[in-house]
């Protein structure tokens, strides 16, 4: 903001001089835009190393390549925690503040602690964008934050697939991940409108594929008449699919979940997973880079850019 007001002051002085010279009052808003001189370094900090972010990376790189054609060199760096560990994630944000990149994009792992450090980054004069997981209105956000609606949409989709009756289960993801919790709540709220559907188990899989497999195996043992499973993240529908496939119960159990990892798409193709709500995370990477460069040019950028999501089914995939 400091530089912005300085520029404004400069413009005001310039226009004042212009007036003194006798010409008409003119304020060239175009002069507020600053040219990019030299390469820009943008640091992205995701929640954890995960295939989901590879698609975000592809989008980010595409935007950087576009800028390269315009002669603006953008170096997109990914600083990825090997594990989803809050302390490690915060340490990376802290360290990058000291490094003072031209832009910092953070996917919030733990909003309550992340906001503290993101505010320190902003105070240090760094351009900050949050992506993927929303954490506060105080920061620009590119991504999809309607998690409860995703859960509700998948509940309605699942209810229709299983004929609006029977026992279903929930793989709840990580108990400390706000987006997982919101999807589960949305799913439950929608299912409350379907009295003939019972939610018979709900277990946290901690975003671990292996754990999702064993939880699903146990759930199938406990409830032989299970007809549906809802996975609240990208890895647990795959885990559920592997378990259901192994048990030979593909025809009995309908699986719905999140995101479009390659294995998920294969399971949809094979008819093991009925449908997933997929985000357009390529867009998230693309626009995050566009906005961070724009911020460096002193452009205005939206506080929120909703990149949305859609239900992917075998039919939808066949159309492509």
């Amino acid at each position, binding site marked *: 903001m400091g530089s912005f007001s300085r520029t404004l002051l400069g413009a005001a002085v310039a226009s004042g001089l212009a007036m003194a010279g006798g010409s008409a009052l003119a304020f060239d808003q175009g002069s507020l835009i600053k040219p990019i001189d030299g390469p820009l370094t943008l640091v992205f900090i995701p929640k954890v190393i995960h295939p989901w972010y590879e698609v975000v990376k592809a989008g980010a790189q595409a935007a950087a390549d576009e800028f390269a054609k315009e002669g603006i060199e953008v170096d997109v760096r990914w600083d990825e*925690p090997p594990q989803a560990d809050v*302390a490690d994630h915060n340490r*990376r944000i802290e*360290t*990058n503040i000291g*490094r*003072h990149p031209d832009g910092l994009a953070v996917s919030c792992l733990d909003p309550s*602690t992340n906001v503290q450090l993101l505010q320190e980054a902003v105070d240090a004069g760094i351009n900050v964008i949050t992506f993927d997981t929303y954490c506060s209105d105080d920061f620009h956000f590119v991504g999809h934050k309607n998690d409860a609606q995703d859960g509700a949409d998948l509940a309605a989709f699942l209810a229709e697939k299983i004929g609006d009756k029977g026992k279903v289960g929930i793989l709840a993801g990580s*108990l*400390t991940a706000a987006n997982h919790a919101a999807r589960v709540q949305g799913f439950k709220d929608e299912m409350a409108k379907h009295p003939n559907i019972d939610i018979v188990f709900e277990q946290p899989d901690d975003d671990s594929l292996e754990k999702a497999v064993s939880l699903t195996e146990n759930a199938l043992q406990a409830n032989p008449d299970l007809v549906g499973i809802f996975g609240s993240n990208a890895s647990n529908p795959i885990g559920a699919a592997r378990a259901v496939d192994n048990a030979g119960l593909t025809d009995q159990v309908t699986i719905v979940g999140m995101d479009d990892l390659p294995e998920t798409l294969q399971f949809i193709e094979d008819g093991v997973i009925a449908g997933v709500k997929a985000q357009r995370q390529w867009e998230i990477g693309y626009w995050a880079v566009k906005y961070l460069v724009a911020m460096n040019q002193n452009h205005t950028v939206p506080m929120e850019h909703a990149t949305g999501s859609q239900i992917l089914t075998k039919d939808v995939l066949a159309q492509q």
Partner: protein
Amino acid sequence: MSEAAVSSVRRKPQGLAGALAKFRQWDASGIFVALIVLCLVLAVAAPAFLSQYNLSVVARQASFVGLVALGQTLVLLIGGIDLSLGAAAGLSAIVGGLMLTSVGIHPYLVVPLTACFGFLLGTINGFFTARLRLNPFIVTLASWEIFAGATLVITKGYPIRPLGDAFQWFGRGEIFGIPVPVVIFLAAGLILSYVLARTRFGRNIYAIGGNRDAANLVGIRVWRIEFIVFGLAGMLASLAGILYAARMNSAQPSVGEGWLMGAITAAIIGGTSLRGGQGTIIGTIFGALLMAVLANGIVLLNVSGYWERVIVGLVVLIAILVDLFRRR
């Protein structure tokens, strides 16, 4: 080095050569050299490393894991291990957060009260391992689960925040330009160094770790010392947890999860033996600093996240090797 210098060492250590000989006898010299070399490399390769902001960030990061590592060192010295320390830190942070927000206890009282709570948590482990003679690995594996589970039961996964401006001083404030958690970490290290080297309690700790039965025979009240050591370890872990909460202005349920292995690693590369009876506090402090500097360097040098854990493992191996050659 010239022959004269070597012979002067043999006669009577003096001057530079004497200092060098003393340095080589020092338990923590290997890890100290490793730490200095790493810092020099980073100072050259990444100019941001030496900025005041970055150094205070590194020191503060080291102090959280470092406090847990100090506790782990004490437990390792008596020949035990405490796997529950990370979870104890998390649970203490939550309980401290509740003291502040729900009970309304004065911010300055919360830190000592949380430390007392941590001591109590530790003595639970102490009771089972010292009094009932159960294997500490198994006991603390169980209490790890119980502490981590209790955290989720209390919080339902939600963080406790905000904790208030006054309280944040403990995590964000500075004393003479040094971050408060770093001051507390170093103070704890100084006190423990003194206790281990100069008090009967400290000497008894080494005696128990060296040979428990012999310690028993010479009349050391072994179980009481073990009981207190586990309590102290819990206390140090709880300090790490509550200071981290103060730093982040939020008591977060998953805090401490990642500290267990880091703390054990810091102690071990600092020269503490897993078999007990051997190790120093200063070694652990350097170990914690080395781990924090390494983690910082990985970010500053933009090392690929995929390689990061390989590199951490390699550096730990090298640190242990340096120590091995020093001892030979």
